[in-house]
């Protein structure tokens, strides 16, 4: 009898437990389902620097092909509310799976004797179409969402020498931004470059843990790179100096010896490329200049780019080559972002160690006057202001501070007065480098090799360039896709170029961009505080001086100046600047304060009333 009672009691307890478990979890499943329907879904991932998937439109065709279901599934997972927060937790969890140790992402042993990386892009078609629209990028990116390190990071790594065809295909698929468009504030993608994977942790840079992209190398492509640049010189003749600078990357200086078998020598590869240059191409020895300062903060720990300081040392080497004396570092306005910078290496590896050891983003702004303009790649004629230093760039996009990202085709008019004009062909390493040229050339034309489609020789002649610079990091100089770009610019038909160099006094009709915002012609001179006061030139762009930017050369009060925060365009800085539209919006915004349509006066000498005066009052007390 007693036994039965105990059993009855036990049953009741079990029943209660079952009811509780059931209630908790059904409530959770149903509640989360409801919440995920109600809550707003994000459209952009800031940490990953990409647009998220979109809700697919239903059609019978898309349904029958299975695309609808697949896209719906992707959309649901990709746009989970609080996604960026959750992926951050995911990174923490990944890290908690074991004892933190050096993590290799798609890394393989390389042959130390010779660079013999297989370039997955080599099998691609020779000419990549220059895409310049939003959609293609989004489409491309949708396949780049997966972050399987081995595949995505280095498609080349998984490409077996023999089975070339399938590997080429996979390489193309996993290179998310292979054809990304030009008008983004969007900075070079790791998978754009032939690499040997990423090593995170196990590497110290400037006393903290870091990530490093490992160098595989490819002599065959390196040789082709050198030959192509030589043929530029051959075509251009004696009238134009052609310089070539191949930039080493962080792996060369900071990879511990014990991991040396995972990366080839960049020095060897750079020397190899330089040895193949002919026809009087002038090599620029950036390597030595950078190496001499390897104890300084010249590369990012969490991003595959160099810092602005690294770019400065390369610039000193370039000055050497062009017979100029570079301004001293102290001649620049030094600024440091308040916000820490966590760059592309985190985006790819999602390794929390990078997030926990963020970079400090310091940059050096010239005090000289200049005017920056962006040209649309397709029409070439349309121009809009480009502040060159896009100081509002935030988050993982911070490297987009320079030039506003990769995609722009830019003209900078300066007051250097050297009588020289330069056309610069670059990938994203060139972004940080380009602004330094303001002190060396009267006109600077910046062209990203990957996004430009016209004939480069014609272009160089049209703008009347005296100098041409090819500046690429050593990965890029080994990557067929980029080299294909150099070739494409060389051989593309001359007839297509319709470049008309806008005079200093341009009047540009008010165009309307996709968002219906006016794009005006705005004078763009740069606003280092000290220079500005006492100068007649005024800077509308200055209104964008972000609060996040700490001005080291200024007393702290500079940040809290009331007028600065009172500027209407201040709102721009709080926007997550990801989209081209937003970029345009920001650059266009000052135009609103300037007399809009026809600014027929030389913009630089026309401080349009309201904005200028306000800024003037801002800057005066500072000095």
């Amino acid at each position, binding site marked *: 009898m007693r036994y039965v009672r*105990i059993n009855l*009691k*036990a*049953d009741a*307890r*079990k*029943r209660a*437990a*079952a*009811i*509780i*478990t*059931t209630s*908790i*979890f*059904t409530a*959770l*499943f*149903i509640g*989360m389902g409801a919440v*995920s*329907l109600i809550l707003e879904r994000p459209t952009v991932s800031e940490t990953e620097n990409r647009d998220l998937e979109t809700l697919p439109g239903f059609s019978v065709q898309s349904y*029958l092909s*299975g695309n609808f*279901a697949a896209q*719906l*599934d992707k959309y*649901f*997972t990709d746009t*989970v509310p609080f*996604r960026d927060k*959750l*992926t951050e*937790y*995911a*990174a923490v*969890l*990944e890290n*908690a*799976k*074991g*004892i933190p*140790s*050096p*993590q*290799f992402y798609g890394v*393989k*042993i390389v042959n130390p004797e010779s660079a013999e990386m*297989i370039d997955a892009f080599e099998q691609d078609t020779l000419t990549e179409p220059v895409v310049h629209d939003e959609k293609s990028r989004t489409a491309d990116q949708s396949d780049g*969402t*997966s*972050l*399987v390190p*081995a595949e995505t990071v280095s498609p080349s*790594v*998984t*490409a*077996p*020498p023999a089975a070339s065809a399938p590997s080429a295909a996979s390489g193309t698929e996993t290179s998310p931004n292979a054809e990304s468009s030009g008008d983004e504030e969007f900075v070079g993608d790791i998978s754009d470059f032939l690499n040997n994977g990423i090593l995170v942790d196990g590497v110290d840079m400037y006393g903290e843990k870091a990530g490093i992209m490992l160098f595989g190398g490819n002599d065959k492509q390196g040789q082709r790179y050198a030959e192509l640049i030589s043929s530029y010189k051959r075509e251009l003749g004696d009238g134009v100096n052609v310089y070539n600078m191949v930039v080493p990357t962080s792996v060369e200086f900071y990879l511990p010896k014990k*991991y040396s078998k995972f990366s080839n020598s960049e020095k060897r590869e750079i020397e190899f490329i330089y040895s193949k240059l002919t026809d009087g191409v002038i090599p620029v020895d950036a390597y030595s200049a950078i190496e001499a300062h390897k104890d300084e903060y010249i590369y990012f720990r969490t991003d595959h780019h160099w810092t602005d300081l690294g770019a400065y040392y390369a610039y000193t080497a370039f000055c050497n080559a062009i017979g100029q004396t570079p301004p001293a570092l102290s001649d620049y306005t030094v600024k440091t972002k308040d916000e820490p910078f966590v760059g592309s290496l985190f985006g790819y590896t999602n390794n929390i160690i990078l997030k926990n050891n963020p970079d400090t983003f310091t940059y050096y702004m010239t005090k000289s006057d200049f005017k920056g303009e962006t040209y649309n790649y397709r029409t070439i004629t349309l121009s809009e202001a480009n502040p060159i230093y896009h100081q509002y760039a935030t988050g993982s996009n911070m490297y987009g501070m320079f030039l506003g990202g990769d995609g722009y085709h830019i003209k900078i008019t300066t007051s250097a007065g050297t009588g020289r004009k330069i056309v610069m062909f670059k990938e994203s390493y060139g972004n940080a480098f380009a602004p330094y040229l303001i002190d060396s050339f009267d006109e600077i034309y910046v062209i990203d090799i990957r996004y430009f489609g016209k004939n480069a020789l014609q272009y160089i002649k049209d703008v009347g360039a005296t100098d041409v610079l090819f500046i690429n990091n050593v990965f890029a100089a080994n990557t067929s896709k980029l080299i294909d770009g150099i070739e494409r610019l060389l051989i593309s038909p001359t007839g297509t170029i319709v470049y008309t160099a806008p005079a200093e006094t341009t009047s540009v009709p008010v165009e309307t961009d996709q968002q219906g915002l006016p794009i005006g012609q705005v004078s763009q001179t740069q606003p280092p505080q000290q220079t500005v006061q006492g100068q007649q030139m005024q800077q509308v762009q200055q209104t964008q001086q972000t609060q996040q930017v700490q001005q080291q050369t200024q007393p702290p009060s500079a940040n809290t100046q009331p007028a600065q925060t009172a500027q209407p365009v201040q709102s721009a800085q709080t926007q997550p600047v990801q989209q081209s539209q937003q970029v345009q919006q920001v650059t266009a915004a000052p135009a609103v304060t300037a007399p809009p349509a026809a600014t027929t006066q030389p913009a630089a000498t026309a401080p349009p009333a309201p904005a200028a005066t306000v800024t003037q009052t801002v800057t005066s007390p500072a000095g």
Partner: protein
Amino acid sequence: MVFSDLLFIYMFLPLCLVLYYIFPNTTYRNGVLIIFSLAFYSFGEPVWVLLLIGSALVDYLNGLFIDKCKKRRSRAAVLGVVMSLVINLGVLILFKYSGFIMENVNALTGLSLPVRRFTLPIGISFYTFQTISYTVDVYCGRARVQRSFLDFLLYVSLFFQLVAGPIVRYTTVANEISRRRFSIFDMSRGIERFVLGLGKKVIIANSLGSIADELLTFETAPVSAAAAWAGILMFSFQIYYDFSGYSDMAIGLGLMFGFHFDENFNYPYISKSASEFWRRWHISLGSFFRDYVYIPMGGNRSHQILNIAVVWFLTGFWHGASWNYIFWGLFWGLLVAIEKLFLRKVLDKIPSVFGHLYLLAAAAAGWMLFYFEDLGKLKQCFFGMFGMNGIPLSDEITASLLKGSCFVIIAAAVFSCPVYRMLSEKTEALAAKSALAYTAAKIGENIVLLGILAVSSILLVKQSYNPFLYFRY
């Protein structure tokens, strides 16, 4: 769609649960399940869902035909079985094996017959076997004929087991199709099983699977011994946690909707012999071949060796249209045969630790055969395992991969022993002893389950590596 998918867990499942339990009677509930099942399947196979319905229809009619003949005591009943076999196996051969067969015919004869490889409709290897089991069982009198097509369609299409098993026999669920009783115990056990399965899949299988893939890719560099061993070990864990996790989720879902499926896994890695391993591994497949091939062929009584060879050839071949699966199946068949001949007696006499070691080595060797469809790579891996390729025995990448996931690896090793079962039995036993202790234990259990669900969900938000290994069958 797969179960370890946010869209499934937080949209499909709750929607299905709510609609299912809104309706009071089984007929409507079955309707809900059929609609959701077909939606689930058409999510992955928007076209071949028709094949599924067609296959169900054919065997439904075959069942009726067999039943009719049997009532008339007509010998023609066997035609129904033959028809079912021909159609089901024909479909399976056409989609799964025709390319492989043609390739080998071409290779043998030197002809160049056209080779066409079809994309395999999801779950076809599972549902064709299920419908075969139905017609055979009706013929043998083990099952009663199903007169309602919708009920039969429900059995075939039930989304819990449709795409990746277990192979649920008709007899297992025949009664529950028309009569199910809701039980809160089933419900809570079902939820528990589902969450555990999800954790097995997302936390363990996916983590270790990505390590296995990274270690066993060796395309540009030869593999070190450490990498080869670790890679095979990680794959051994992956395939167990992946597949048993999926079965757990299927069984759990079944319980949540009132179905009781048989267990599909029973801690296979604690076995002491190959025969025992296959009584614990993918039980529904092993027992299917035993009951529908081995025993009808004569079992232990006549030409046993031939029977063993056929069964294990089929077991291997079922896993994929590639020679490595056939070798893998025959490898297990060979071990089973040797055990029957003499090894069993030896194993019984020596300390059981040798049995365990023998089985684990056999399983690892088996998975090596299973993993590499490319026989050249298999060779590379094998030489690598014994340091026969002239490169150092270990490397930094392997070390860092293992170290970086060591807690998950330890968990994988621990939970491949019946630890969880022991804990949960102890917990239930507490109910009769002490309310306090039972409450505490249950609170702990719920917290652990919530933790597993939370961790799995968060990992799924950013998990690109989420394959189901048994999805291609």
